[in-house]
């Protein structure tokens, strides 16, 4: 895979009237899948639409595949695929008709019939776009983004409102795109989507990138992990603490429910279980909680991701 960035955003500012949607945003995305994660109103769509050439930056620079999306639009458009959050299709057109049409605008499009089957759009038959279900419209929008065999695909909330099965089908397609060397920029406010798909995650809040890295890197930094177990109520937590490394904390949250917070590694787990063995405690429901992107987001922004 290429190492030069596919998207390079520097000090991007975009205002709508008095409201600043994007406020000095820096973002570098390489090959592979980059997730732009943030709550509604964080500036995700504005950032992506600036990369797609729909919006002119108020200040800052944007380069996509090395090109200026506004100035070099004619050269850039055939090379990128765009999935809009909604709409984009003639209300009287059938799914296959619109897909075939967009395929015709490209020199080497994908096989339309195979793509229709792959995304389960065959059942749309002769139904016009306005009568398709939300999920079908969403999958058609995805198909329209990839049919021209682009180098880079922008997916704006690709699984919003999809049922779990359709969601997995979309994820599978994103993975296949990645495997075949297509770069993907996707916006989402589902942290599991970012964790599942992304090589790289940029967390956006208030129009800025507040953290960027691989999901592992982001989850490693910051807060510690948690180990929970249940046992009989009233265990001697002080004795447990003495057995643990100095930087750990332990507490009985509710009677019989215990929590250890610290650097949870195999050694710590062994220490806890052997302490339990010494005290004749069977640690039921022992669990280790990994630090999630959701926790990272909460720490960075003080906001719930899905607010």
């Amino acid at each position, binding site marked *: 895979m290429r190492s030069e960035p596919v998207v390079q955003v520097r000090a991007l500012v975009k205002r709508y009237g008095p409201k600043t949607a994007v406020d000095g945003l820096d973002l570098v995305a390489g090959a592979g899948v980059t997730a732009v994660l943030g709550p509604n109103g964080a500036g995700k769509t504005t950032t992506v639409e600036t990369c*797609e*050439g*729909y919006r002119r930056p108020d200040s800052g620079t944007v380069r996509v595949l090395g090109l200026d999306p506004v100035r070099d639009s*004619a050269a850039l*458009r*055939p*090379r*990128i695929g*765009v999935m*809009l959050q*909604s*709409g*984009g*299709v*003639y*209300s*009287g*057109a059938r799914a296959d*008709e619109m897909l075939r*049409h*967009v395929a*015709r*605008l*490209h*020199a*080497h499009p*994908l096989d339309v019939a*195979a793509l229709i*089957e*792959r995304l389960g759009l065959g059942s749309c038959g002769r139904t016009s776009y306005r009568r398709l279900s939300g999920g079908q419209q969403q999958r058609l929008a995805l198909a*329209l983004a*990839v049919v*021209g*065999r*682009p*180098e880079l695909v922008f997916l704006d909330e690709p699984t919003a409102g999809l049922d779990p099965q359709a969601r997995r*089908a979309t994820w*599978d397609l994103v993975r*296949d*795109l990645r*495997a*075949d*060397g*297509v770069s993907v920029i996707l916006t989402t406010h589902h942290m599991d989507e970012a964790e599942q798909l992304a090589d790289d995650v940029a967390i956006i809040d208030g129009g800025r990138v507040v953290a960027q890295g691989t999901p592992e890197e982001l989850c490693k930094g910051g807060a510690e992990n948690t180990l929970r177990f249940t046992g009989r109520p009233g265990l001697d937590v002080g004795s447990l603490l003495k057995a643990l490394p100095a930087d750990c904390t332990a507490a009985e949250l509710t009677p019989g429910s215990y929590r250890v917070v610290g650097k949870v590694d195999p050694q710590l787990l062994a220490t806890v279980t052997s302490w339990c063995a010494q005290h004749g405690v069977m640690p039921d429901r022992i669990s280790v909680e990994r630090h999630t992107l959701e926790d990272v987001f909460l720490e960075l922004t003080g906001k719930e991701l899905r607010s």
Partner: protein
Amino acid sequence: MTTASGTYTPRPGAAPLPRMIAAQAALETKMLLRNGEQLLLTVVIPTLLLVLFSSVDVVDTGKGEAVDFLTPGILALAVMSTAFTGQAIATGFERRYGVLKRLAASPLPRWGLMTAKTVSVLVTEVLQVILLAVIAFALGWSPHGNPAAVLLLLVLGTAAFSGLGLLMAGTLKAEATLAAANLVFLLLLVGGGVIVPLEKFGGAGQHVLGLLPISALSNGLRDVLQHGAGMPWGDLGILAVWAVLGLAAAGRFFRWE
């Protein structure tokens, strides 16, 4: 379900421009012909008006056969229904539903999209003219004049109405465009010399109404087709001014989303 690896390997590229424009024009025409309300406007209403007012003596169409007076007016109405009303409504909703936005991200350039829309309008007009001419001949129509003058009037009329239709579609909300385009259609149908001679509106009214693009088109067509006049320069001039103003304003104020 999985796909053989390499299926999605990038191979970007725009199709050749003529192919893109042809595909776009074909799709636009198909969408128009599939739309019931559009067909009502572009086919049913002009046909009904032509048949009704040619066979029943409701309006005083002056000397000569009613069909010879009516056909040029109905041809002007057909041009207006497609280039102005139909195009304004369709484009307004394409803008509202993000179709224009979606296509703006495709390899088809904006001017290519506009060219395709024009081709689609012209194709529809050719179908309308053929249909209406066949009906008019069946009703005893006997046209005169220079076909080149007729063609020039139709082309300039199309340009004038397209500019005004796109101006409306690109600046108003889709619902407002729908309402306004239909209202304008109705007003110009009555006050634009289509079926009611402009003389009925009195001296001053006649002069003001005569400056409307629909009046210029219907009068110009009538001068040529009914009276066998040469180039109707006055009416061509009026249409040219509307075309320049309308297209320039549309180019300046059209918002794509």
